[in-house]
């Protein structure tokens, strides 16, 4: 009963805000503190019949992550597909735009009202648009950005080390899953090879007859993890929903990076050689 009431009011307020207040009023922001605690949400694909249900589903995950102290919450790639009534490939651009705007409003609204940073990635034809929503309602896009006092990049670029990126986000959706070693192949490996923290969140489940798998994880170089395995948090299953949270020690990371950094190698690897 309480849940139903909560769902009704959150949806009601969302509709009120998006219809009658096109410019979001900032109720509260928590921008003073630097990001140090992050969450990865593993979502099992489900097609929502209306935006309110989608809103409530996202909000539920955010609240759970916030309860565990997360300041940045990373959602997987392709969540906009959950809002699309027909196949993404046969939709017209105007339909895609409409859904995309609705989807963006959900994240903007929740990030503002809950005072958290949210990372999400929309599928758009064959590309992916990755964004971070800030507590003041701004959308940050691009491969790398300053956000919450940290230098953050999205997975896919190469020069993280040179650009002194501290945290890499990998919103993912994959159908090829060849066992547990798959968990090490992307974000974990990047974390070991460029000395960054990495958050990876997967969309799992069935979309249009295709099965998607993945184990979400929060990783760091082995030297900064107490268990010396580079894993700060890892999802229990590759096919079920999950939420994982971990604390990132950026001071410890900086010490390791300073130890590894070597001007002689920098010279050797500069583009002039």
């Amino acid at each position, binding site marked *: 009963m309480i849940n139903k009431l909560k769902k009704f009011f959150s949806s009601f307020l969302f509709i009120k805000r998006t219809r009658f207040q096109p410019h979001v009023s900032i109720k509260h922001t928590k921008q003073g503190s630097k990001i140090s605690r992050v969450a990865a949400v593993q979502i099992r694909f489900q097609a929502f019949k209306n935006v309110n249900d989608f809103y409530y589903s996202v909000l539920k995950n955010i609240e759970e992550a916030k309860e565990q102290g997360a300041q940045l919450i990373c959602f997987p790639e392709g969540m906009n597909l959950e809002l699309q009534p027909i196949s993404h490939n046969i939709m017209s651009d105007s339909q895609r735009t409409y859904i995309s705007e609705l989807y963006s409003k959900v994240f903007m609204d929740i990030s503002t009202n809950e005072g958290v940073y949210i990372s999400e990635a929309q599928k758009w034809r064959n590309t992916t648009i990755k964004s971070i929503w800030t507590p003041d309602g701004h959308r940050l896009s691009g491969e790398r950005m300053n956000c919450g006092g940290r230098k953050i990049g999205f997975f896919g670029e*190469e020069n993280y*080390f*040179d650009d002194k990126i501290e945290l890499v986000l990998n919103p993912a959706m994959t159908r090829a899953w*060849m066992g547990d*070693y798959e968990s090490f192949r992307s974000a974990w490996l990047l974390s070991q090879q460029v000395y960054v923290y990495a958050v990876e969140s997967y969309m799992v489940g069935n979309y249009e007859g295709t099965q998607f798998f993945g184990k979400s994880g929060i990783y760091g*170089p082995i030297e900064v993890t107490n268990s010396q395995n580079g894993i700060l948090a890892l999802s229990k299953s590759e096919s079920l929903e999950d939420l994982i949270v971990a604390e990132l020690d950026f001071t410890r990371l900086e010490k390791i990076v300073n130890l590894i950094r070597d001007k002689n*190698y920098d010279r050797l690897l500069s583009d002039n*050689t």
Partner: protein
Amino acid sequence: MLKVFAGPVPVSTEFIDFDIAVTVDREVPKYGLWFVISQNGISFHNSGLEIGERKWRVPIAIDETIFEVEGLKIAALYGKELRMRKFLRKVSSMNVDMILGYLKTEDYNPYALMASGWGCAQYTGAPTLVVNLADDRIGYSLFSKMNGFSDGVQLLFERYAIMKAPVEKGRNLNKRIKRNKGLKND
């Protein structure tokens, strides 16, 4: 497939047929192609004669890390080089056939081996053999690029092993093997 022996020299006599060998022993046999790895560097020996070496220091040029072995290019990397993505990209651009790595760790940690050896193989695509000195134990590991049939871990911290690295053998190497067999049979 390239047949590689890794382990102590006396044990190598159990295996009559391999293309190249890797050891940490100082006494190198008078036959075959041997890589000798130590805490200071790596040397390459052909029929007992040292014909190349690399000290473990920052190379002046990437070429310094590469040994041309009978038509094959084998890169020798140590420690943090195995995890330096930019460095690996440069090495990989030299079309190396195989990577030999030396890793010293305080204790045996499979994750450290994964980060260095397995990661190197995934990023460069070249099979990577890592000699790991963990505390006072020596272990040999072989990693290859992951595919639908293999997770890429061929061998993990063995005292000695004969292994098949997925490397296309050059024509020169085939000739050399025949000569080596002749020498051993004499």
